[in-house]
Structure formats: structure tokens, C-alpha cells
């Protein structure tokens, strides 16, 4: 069939209809907010953490594979994972929303301007922790490994990448 002929066959009216697109769960607003408050509540000293460390933890708990890599890194079983780490711009937006909604705040008095959990955010985190069968893997990882992932580590990884 010639191209011309084919195009003639196609010469009928048609329309496109936009369908909703699927969205990876990590890019949902609630997901980002929930992970953020959990990192601060369970996985951070004094419920406070510098921004880069939040990003590192967000990457670390994202999947089984990442969790495993992170565990290996903090146990010195492998070389730095910098090449794997991806910083998620969506998570930055989640932090911005969280600040706007009063879940977290920026500590301006400290030098590195860390992010800290507010009372409202703490209440949210407590509710998440009390809810069974929800984010269980994430909670477990943060509980066991969260505080071992230090600000120094995230700083050095930042420099590497």
C-alpha cells in the first residue's frame, strides 16, 4: 500500500481524549508529607535534621533495594553509594508544603538551618506510628537505621556527587 493511499484511508474525523495518568506513589503529596514527618520523628535526633540528610533518608527508604544499599553503606560493607543516590525534587516540594501547612519549620537560629518538627507535625507522626499496616517497612528501617545515617555522612555524600 502506498503511503498516499494509507493516508486516504485515515482521512476520517477522530479526537483525542485526555485520560488521567498514573502517578508513582512517592510523588503524591501525602506520601511526601508522611515520609517527612516520619523521618524527623523516628529517624532524627531531637526531631531535627539538615535538609541534605532529609533527602538522603528519603532516597534510602524509597525501595527495598535502596534500603539494602544504605544498610551496606553504614555498615561499611561497600563503597559509598553516591553514584546511585538520586535527589528527588518532588521531596523538596513536599518540604515546602509541610512548612506552609505548619508541620515542620526551619530553625533559623542554627547555622545550617535545619528542618524541625512542629507540635502539629509531631501529632501527625504519632498518628502514623499508631496506625497499623501502614508504611511498616519504612517505619522499621527508620527505627533501626535512621539515626545511624548522620549529617556528616550526608554531607560527605553530597560532596562526592
Amino acid at each position, binding site marked *: 500500500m502506498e503511503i498516499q493511499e494509507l493516508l486516504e484511508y485515515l482521512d476520517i474525523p477522530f479526537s483525542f481524549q*485526555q485520560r*488521567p*495518568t*498514573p*502517578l*508513582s*506513589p*512517592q*510523588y*503524591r*503529596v*501525602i*506520601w*511526601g*508529607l*508522611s515520609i517527612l514527618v516520619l523521618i524527623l520523628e523516628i529517624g532524627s535526633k531531637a526531631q531535627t535534621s539538615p535538609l541534605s540528610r532529609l533527602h538522603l533518608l528519603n532516597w534510602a527508604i524509597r*525501595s*527495598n533495594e535502596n534500603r539494602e544499599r544504605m544498610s551496606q553503606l553504614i555498615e561499611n560493607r561497600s563503597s559509598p553509594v553516591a553514584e546511585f543516590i538520586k535527589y528527588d*525534587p*518532588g*521531596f523538596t*516540594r*513536599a518540604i515546602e*508544603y509541610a512548612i*506552609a*501547612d*505548619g*508541620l515542620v519549620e526551619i530553625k533559623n537560629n542554627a547555622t545550617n538551618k535545619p528542618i524541625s518538627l512542629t507540635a*502539629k507535625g509531631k*501529632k*501527625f507522626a504519632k*498518628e*502514623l506510628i499508631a*496506625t497499623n*499496616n*501502614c*508504611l511498616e517497612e519504612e517505619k522499621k528501617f527508620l527505627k533501626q537505621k535512621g539515626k545511624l545515617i548522620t549529617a556528616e555522612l550526608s554531607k560527605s555524600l553530597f560532596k562526592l556527587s
Partner: protein
Amino acid sequence: MSLQIRYLRIRVSTPAGLFGVDIPFREGLFVLHADNTSGKSTCLQSIIYALGLEGMISPQHNIPLPSVVTDLLEYQNVRYPVLESEVLLEVSNGSKNITIRRQIKGNQNIHLITVWEDAILSQPNISCLSSDYFVRRSGSASRERGFHHFLAEFIGWQLPTVPTYDETEITLYIETIFPFLFVEQKHGWSNLRNRFPTYFRIKDLNKRAFEFIFNLDAQEIATQKVLLKQQEANLKSHWSNKVSECNRLAASINATIDNLPSQPISIWPPTIQPAVLVSYANDWISIGQAILDFEQQLASLEAQEIPVVNEISEIVNEQLEQKNIEKLNIEMQLRIKFEEIENSTISVDSLQSRIFSLEEELSKHKDLQTLSNLGSVTDLQVNSGTCPTCHQHISDSLIAPQEVSNPMTIDQNVEFIEEQLKIFKAMRQSEMQTLEIKRRQLNAINSRVADIREEIRSLKTTLTSPNNSPSYFAIEERIRLKDKIRHTKSVREQIDVLLGSFEPLSGQWNEVQEMIRSLPKGILSDEDTAKIRDLEICFQQQLTEYGFSSLNINEVKISSTSYFPEYEGFDLRFDLSASDYIRIFWAYLLGLLEVSRSHQTNHLGLLILDEPRQQSARETSIEAFLRRASNSLQYNQQVIIATSESRDVLEAHLENIPHTLRQFDERIIAPI
């Protein structure tokens, strides 16, 4: 099934002599009247104590009776120390009387109960033998010398075993059923449901107790359901064991079994019969056909004489060449098959990892669903789709906030992933089946290769053997073929036997399915439903008579799941005025007694209420209650009530109804 209290005797010995009381009871309504603190409750609790049932009130082993019989007896403002005391109780089961004696204070072990097999209190001239039983010790409900074992037999109760919270089974103890028959004064009236002794750790105790006292089939049906489920699971595993045995046998001759149901079916053989298919070249033929083919080959071989080597050396050389070509061909096929299997395996693996990541994503979405219902989340501004800072509309996506992409809602997304999972799982399933078939074919080719090698070897042997000897190849070909026929036949036989053994399994499966179908959908049988309905009617009728006013009476129902009165599906406790809650008690407990007149139940026809006029329910209602209770006389039942109602009022209430009234003006336990 009946128990009636006929005579109570309490004896207390003090340094000032013997004190005590004798109360002959009668059937029908029996009212024990005395002032407060004069010892009514002592009398009623003595009945419970004599029956060894104090465990219904508390798990403790100290004697649940007031000090008047245990420690200090006060009479006309003088106190006497109690030296010894005992209670004797005469009861009847409708056809036989017994007398029970249990010491309260004294040297005897309080776990000991003496029983005379006759009415020695009301008929003092009778003499008869006594025997001793023990009570409130382990085994008292199960061993022959256990009093509750004896008592259950006497009143005709066959107590079921019920599951506990410790995953074991124990007897439904008598103590757990008596709260339906006896309400004590102090704690008994506070909550209708929570009066059942929990320390036995019986699961859903008040339901089990109700099912027993009302003789519901529910308990039986529930047990049966569990049993049938168990049988069903057993049959399934038997079935799949047999299926895998069949498959293993088939695999030994590179065959496969078609149409063999992997789950039990109720008609055997199935309409499309299972068929054993043997791999033949690149095709599948039935096992019967394969055997026939082999036998024909053998027959045509055997029709020829075994040639001598020098006669056939040329032909053998030709055959050898052919076989070598065939071998090369088939080895090529083998390589292709290997590759196919390799590809299939890779594709199964990649499907597997796709499924794995979909499942991970799905579980995250499920988490999201949970999250979006949390209170803290619904309070957030971003959750409502508005930017908390600039109040413009924002989308649910962190990467495309301006809503260009129109993301799916979480629920849509869950559905989307579930659909994908379904497809991928189906793909994996079919890919795995293909893989299995290819493996079988590979095995078939492999064994064909081995055959050809054998043939080549025997052809070579033939060529190198002496000229006048018979052809080695021709002989071996025959032997090999015979062997193959024998083996294939034996496998076919074994598979046939196995297939035959599906028939009884199928029959059992059918039976179990029929039985499951014949059980009621819920756990209540028709008769159970009728009983509960009658109880509800009787209960509502009484509430009307007693002037119940807190709620619309027609909405107060007997739940067919909890068996207790409920209002719009909730326990009644908190919606009611105190006096209306007492009316609920009366109507429910008397309802149980009344329904037992027209239905077959395990109720003993006995109800003992200590101070039923607890919260001074209006006088009219106690009168209605007494009248209703007095009907028990016509049915040989007994309602015993202890009250401190003022004398005039009580006498007015009782004026026109059949009853027995026993009044005490002073302390009930008095010098004898």
C-alpha cells in the same frame, strides 16, 4: 431438665447455743420478705454456696457469705462468735430429690459436699445413704466424684466443650450458666451482660452460655462448619498429592496428562476424561496409540528373521550413515529447544520482577489509602488541593503541581495497578506452563538422542562382529523396543490405578459440599431463630406491662448475634434510666423462663432474684412483674424473690395472685 429448691436449712452453733433457720420452698412464685440487713441475701447465697456455685460470683476461694455464718453472729444486739456452721439444701429434678450438705465454718474441708439421695429435710423420717463429693477443685466438673459432674447429671445437663482464649477446649462450667438463673443483690443488677465469670478464659462466654441454656443448634452448627472446612482442606491436599504423583509418573516417560483437574471436582470421571499424551517427534500422541505403534514396529521386526552379518553389512553401513545424519539433526533440535527454554526462563524472570515491583507499588498505594483517611491528614490544607501559602489550586502530584498532567486519584491508581498485576500474573502463569511443556519435550529429545547413540553403537558392533554371526543391531533393536513397550505399559497401568483412586475422593468431596450446602447460611437454625423471636416478643410484651419508657419498645430487640437486648445494634446500658434497666433485667430473665415453656431448652425452670426492686422501679411495675412471675406455678417452674418492700404494699401486690410468702419480722437466723 429441671431444678427446684425444696428446703433450705442453715445451722450456726455458738457458745450460746444453736442458731439457724428452716425455709421450706414451694413451686411457683415464692417471696421471701424481711427487712434490710436481716439476712435474706445470706439465705439466697447459701443456696449458691450449697450448690458449690460461688465461682459464678468470684474466682476467689474464700467463702462468699456474710460474717453472720462465718465469724460473728449478732442477735438482739448481742454478738456471739460462730463456732461451726453449715448449710443443707434439698433440691428436686422433677422426679428425684436429693439433699446437699456443705459446711461453712468448721473442721471439715470446705471443698467437700455430702449428698443424700433423698429428701431428708422435708421428710425427716427417711433414712438413706450419703456419699461425699468434692467441689471447686480441678476435676469437679469432669470426675465421677466431682460434685458438678454429679449435679450436671442430676439436672440432666450435658455440658458442651467450648474454645478458650488459650486455644484449648474446656467444659462450659455450670458456674458460667447460672447467671441466667440467679441475680445476686450487690453486683448482680449492674450489668446484664457482664455477670458471667471471665476467669475461665472462655471465648465469647455469654454467647456460649446462652446457646447452651436456650439449647440453640448454633454451637453445634458452628463446630460442624469448622469440621467441614477442615475436611475440605484435607481432601484438597489429598487431591493435589495425587495429581502431582500422576504428573511425576507421566514425566518418567516424557508424557503429560491433559484435562486432569487440579482442584477436587464432585463428579468423577469428568466429562472430558484425562488423557495421557506422549511426546512423539514434535507432536503429542495418546499413550495407547504410542504403545500400539511400538507393538506394530516390534511385530514387523519379529516377522523378519534375524539376518547374519555378512548378508547385511552394506545395509548396516547405509543405516549407520542415516543414523549419523539423524543424530546431527536431532542434536540441532536439542540446541534449539535449549534456546527456547532459556528464552522462556528469562521471560518468566522478567515477568516475575515486574510483578514484584508492581506489588511493591501496590502496597505503597494501599498505605496511601490508609494515610488519606487519617485525621491529621484530612486537617491539612494541601490535602484539600489548595496551596497553603497562595491558596491557588494545586494537584496531588509533587512533580507537576500545576495540574498539567491530571494524575489519577489514589483509588483509580490502585485499580490501575491491580489490573496490570492481573495481566502480568496471567502472563507468568501461561509462560510457566509453556516452559514446563518445553522441558518435557527437551527430555523427550534427550532420550531420543540417547536412543540413536545406542543404535549407532549397536550398528558399529554389528559391523565389527564375525561375518557369520547374527546381527547384533537387529537383536538389540527388538530388545530395546520390548523394553520400551513394557515400561510404557507399566506406567500406563499405574496412572490408570491412580486415576481410578480419584473416584472415592470425588465422592467424599461431593458429600462434604452437600453437607456444607445443607447447613444454614448463618449459624442459627430455623428453630433457633424461632426461639429468639419468641423471646423478643415475650420480652417486648413484658416491657410494655412494666411501664418501660426510656426508648421505643419496638426498637429494643434481642440480637441474633449477641443474644442480648440491643437498641439499634448497641448494648442498652447507657441509654436507659436506672429503673428501666432493671425492667430489662426482669423481662429478659423471665423471658428466658417463659420461652422454655413452649420450646425445648436447657433452662432449669428456676429463677432466683435478690432484691429485684433495686432502683425503686414504680410500684405498678413490680406488681406486674410479680403477677407475670406467678404464672410459673402452672408450668411447675419456680421463681424465688427476696425483697424488703414494705409489708402492706407487698401484701396488696400479692393479693390476687398465686404465691407463697414467707415473712420474717426479725433476724432470719435466730435461736432454735
